């Protein structure tokens, strides 16, 4: 089990930029690729925005091997302030829709170019 402190990864109490969200994604992805369980610890984070979470968490749904079942088993979110929790729900729901649509969009584009049979 790998314990990752967000505050240390981004060197800030403010989780407010896409770039810092990507730093977190890279580290989480590194351990998940090795099938190592990750505890992602948000303690000490005072402000968090959707742009950060889209990159840190939402981007995980862009990888097919990270199914919801896999993520529920391998990724634990810790010390998320109660008032921030609804943001996670929005970001996760949005990422699921986005990547599902993206796949459809790319499939349709390929079909339009190459035919679907």
């Amino acid at each position, binding site marked *: 089990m790998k314990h990752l402190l967000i505050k240390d990864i981004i060197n800030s109490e403010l989780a*407010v930029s896409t770039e810092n969200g*990507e730093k977190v994604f890279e580290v989480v992805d590194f351990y998940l690729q090795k099938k190592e369980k990750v505890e992602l610890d948000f303690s000490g984070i005072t402000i968090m*925005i959707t*742009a950060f979470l889209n990159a840190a968490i*939402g981007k995980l749904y862009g990888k097919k091997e990270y199914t919801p079942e896999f993520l529920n088993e391998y990724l634990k979110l810790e010390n998320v302030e109660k008032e921030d929790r609804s943001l996670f729900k929005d970001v996760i729901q*949005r990422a699921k829709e986005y990547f599902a649509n993206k796949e459809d969009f790319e499939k349709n584009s390929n079909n339009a170019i190459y035919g679907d049979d």
Partner: protein
Amino acid sequence: MVITIPNDIKSEFEGYDYIITWINKYKDVKNTEIIFDFSRVTFLEANLCALIGTIFEIIETGKNKISLQNIKPQVEIILRKNEFLIPFGFSKILDNNGTVLIYKKFTPNDDLGFNNYITTQLLKKPQFPSHSDKLGKEITRNIFEIYENARTHGQCDFIHTCGQFYPKKPDKPLHFTIVDKGVNIKQNVSAFFNIDLNAADAIDWAMKKGNTTKTGDTSGGLGLAVIFEFIKLNKGKIQVISSDGFYEYKNGNVTKKRLGSIFEGTIVNIKFNLNDLNHYSLGNEDEYFENIF
């Protein structure tokens, strides 16, 4: 060339329409000494400095030299407190009331600078709801969402910000303005759909949850919607001006109008209501957080 600034430009449709028409009149002037005459100005909404700073950025692009004259003492005090006049040779006046968020411009990659600005100018102010208060946290979150939106979508050289508290008014408003001179929302949304959209409708579209022009390997489409939902709860006001679109939400109503000319960028002006007794418990916060994926 002397340009006389009219008195009492307000952050309302007419005020923006006036300023943007005026920018377009002078934006092609080059290599000229331009003097802004403030003799008629007896009051200036301090947060509009973010827009005036953007105008100066546009004018300076044409290698013009800007100077200011005839600033009335009461206006000068505000503009020295919020540091707008510092580049013009004026010294700073300390803001003893703690009501000013200084005027500042940031490059889009200076997120540390912006973080520092928000910490010193907002979070540490006695007028601001204390950090443990959810209202303060929500306001800060929303300001970062606007900033990130300008950085991500504007492709601009600078992001200009300014703000002002009015603690003596009943709703204790905090006015905060962010302006960027970059790609406007109409251009982004029209390019996304490959059709020429009305600018106010493009802004309206961008305010809705899930709508985004972002493509690639990161999802988007929540930032402006989160702000919009908060402003509704907070009974505040949001104005977004981009291209020739004017969009405003206040008192439960959306107003969309077309400006007389095009602003090559985006203005976001927000009034937060600090005298807000909502608790922002956000309904489902106690929900089980396991198996969230």
